[in-house]
């Protein structure tokens, strides 16, 4: 159908004026909805998806036109309206209902609910917030992009001194007490 509609707009309009009458008599049913005037945009060109036997278009692609008409008749179309009983049977079938999840547990750390194979959302949010603070400290220390050193980083909290194992490492200070879940070394 798209091949036929490559024609320029004035030819289309002329065809419309000829072909619309034929269409109105139900020769070819309209495919796209929204044909009712009250809601139509004023300037939209309402062209059908496929044009009837178009004389001007025969010069463009004559072989396509009869094939297109035949393929219209072969289109899959509902024969009858599906009754609400049939619709209900389909919509309420057990395979469409939401299944109950049996993999929900209680997080032993914070007591919120968590899925068995997923990290606890609350604890993860806690860790994320602290990591964001550490990253801000790193950003302040580095000052710009591409300044990260080639050594390891160690995070020290209030009142902690770097041990002999943290000899050549970069040290990030955080001004708070060490959280219980962030164990040292």
């Amino acid at each position, binding site marked *: 159908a798209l091949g036929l509609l490559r024609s320029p707009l004035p030819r289309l309009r002329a065809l419309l004026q000829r072909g619309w009458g034929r269409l109105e008599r139900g020769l070819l049913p309209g495919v796209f909805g*929204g044909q009712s005037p009250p809601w139509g945009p004023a300037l939209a060109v309402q*062209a059908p998806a496929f044009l009837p036997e178009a004389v001007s278009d025969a010069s463009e692609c004559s072989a396509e036109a009869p094939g297109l008409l035949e393929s219209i008749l072969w289109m899959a179309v509902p024969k009858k309206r599906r009754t609400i009983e049939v619709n209900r049977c389909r919509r309420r079938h057990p395979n469409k209902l939401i299944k109950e*999840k049996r993999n*929900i547990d209680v997080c032993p750390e914070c007591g919120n*609910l968590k899925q068995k194979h997923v990290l606890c959302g609350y604890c993860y949010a806690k860790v994320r917030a602290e990591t964001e603070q550490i990253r801000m400290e790193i950003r302040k220390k580095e000052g710009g992009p591409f300044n990260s050193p080639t050594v390891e980083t160690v995070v020290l909290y209030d009142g902690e001194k770097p041990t002999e194992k943290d000899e050549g490492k970069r040290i990030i200070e955080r001004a708070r007490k060490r959280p219980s879940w962030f164990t040292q070394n």
Partner: protein
Amino acid sequence: HCSFLSGAAWARGLLSWARPERWFASCSLFPLSCIHTSTSLQKIGKWEKKNMVVYPPQLPGEPRRPAEIYHCRREIKYSKDKMWYLAKLIKGMTIDQALAQLEFSDKKGAKVIKEVLLEAQDLAVRKHNVEFKSNLHIAQSLTGRGRYVKRIRYHARGRFGIMNISRCHYFVKLVEGPPPPPEPPKSGLDQAKEYVQQLRNRTLVHTL
């Protein structure tokens, strides 16, 4: 039905229903005279009115009537059919179980229903004399159609369709106590017995 309230108590009850302190803005001096002139929120829905039912006091021998809490949320921006699946999921569960299922559901309506359930649980504990907030189960959970708005959906080549912006309401009724045990599925033998009984109950109508 006013036999259990004396005349003065009935007048007091009427005044407390009229709630004069809300109408001070419109007419300060005579509360009773402005019952019909006050500005009220458009329409109090039927579900909200179910919370205002007052039962007569129970007799000493009667079993305790379980507390019922009706709560709803109106004009949720979601489809009523899609919301129905969530409502069907939590029907008959305890409130804790329902909250757990909704927390890990990926649907948009799950977040809304979770908020509604938490609000209802809060209301139950504060206003409806429920002792334990976990001792509630969901007796009814329904969806309703909200107001639809029609909009144009633009297709290619100047064509258009009309789409509905759909909204829905969600209603829930919490009842105190453990949930009722689920009905055992009917066996074939039971169904056959019922059918035979129905056949036997038939009589001749309009005869002697």
